[in-house]
């Protein structure tokens, strides 16, 4: 693990800097990503909510929707930033953990040789 210390530190720095990705779009008054509108936005854009979309759009309720802790819709940007950083750490933990388990499962059967 020591070999990768610099890379892990880089990830920590990225997590702490992540709110840049929250502030920058607001700074220049940009909207969301194309094709990632909610049902209400779609309704405003084309005048109706597509029937099939209405049925599947909310098929899953994410525990941390849009990288904000639940109940923080419309919270001040500073609080959202904290949520964002927390999400970044959750992401590091979940992706790192998932990647670790997968790597161990895939490489584990070849014995205990270590480089």
């Amino acid at each position: 693990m020591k070999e990768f210390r610099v890379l892990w530190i880089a990830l920590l720095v990225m997590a702490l800097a992540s709110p840049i990705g929250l502030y920058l779009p607001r700074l220049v008054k940009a909207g969301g990503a194309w094709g990632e509108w909610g049902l209400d936005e779609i309704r405003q854009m084309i005048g109706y909510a597509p029937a099939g979309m209405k049925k599947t759009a909310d098929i899953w309720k994410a525990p941390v929707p849009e990288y904000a802790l639940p109940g923080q819709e419309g919270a001040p940007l500073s609080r959202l930033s904290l949520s964002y950083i927390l999400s970044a750490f959750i992401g590091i933990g979940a992706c790192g953990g998932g990647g670790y388990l997968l790597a161990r499962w895939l490489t584990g059967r070849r014995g205990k040789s270590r480089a």
Partner: protein
Amino acid sequence: MHIPDGYLGPPTYLAAYAACAPLWAIAARRVRQTLSARQAPLLAIAAAFSFLVMMFNIPLPGGTTGHAVGGVLIAIAIGPWGAMLSLTIALVIQAFVFGDGGITAIGANCLNIAFLMPFTGYYAYSFLSRFFPSDKGKALAAGIGGWVGLNCAALTTALMFGIQPLFHTAPDGRALYSPYPISVAVPAILLGHVFLFGVVEALVTGLVVHYLQRSRSAWILHSAAGEAV
């Protein structure tokens, strides 16, 4: 570029899952054969890295936002099949925990972002670095590879959006799923990726390769060489 739930009709998202299933199986086998114990932690680091890269939203002033992915950089480090697994992990976590990208669309998003991006970008990189084998040349090739990979993924994402009205339009002319045709979706998505998000992807890819070349971790860049497919 993460397709949410409700934008793709079942034929599209089921076909995408069906296309991904054998690719995931091949990826697992390839990685099992080629990933060394020394490289194994990179699979985890890469997944976390791409997750974080995607949090940095880049705005087109007054327009839409996008982001880089880091998929080609990861492909250069652990090979395109390893990149497919790392990016799949990030996309699955994004969908289930953060609602970024749909559950039904995981196959589609993985096909675009976890498969097409690392493969097209990696091949662009290895093709170009044959002509520019110096360190600087390879860093440049990596940057161009990043641009190519992200834009390929953006194009196929746009096509998936764009074909929905062809398959799913009610008799009264209303769309059932994503409402915009190819002629709208492709320019809307590609514009930002060609001129801005892809350029950021290129810079991130090229600069990190440039840094790694001179660091003690330079071996990371050579480990995937020669075992691409």
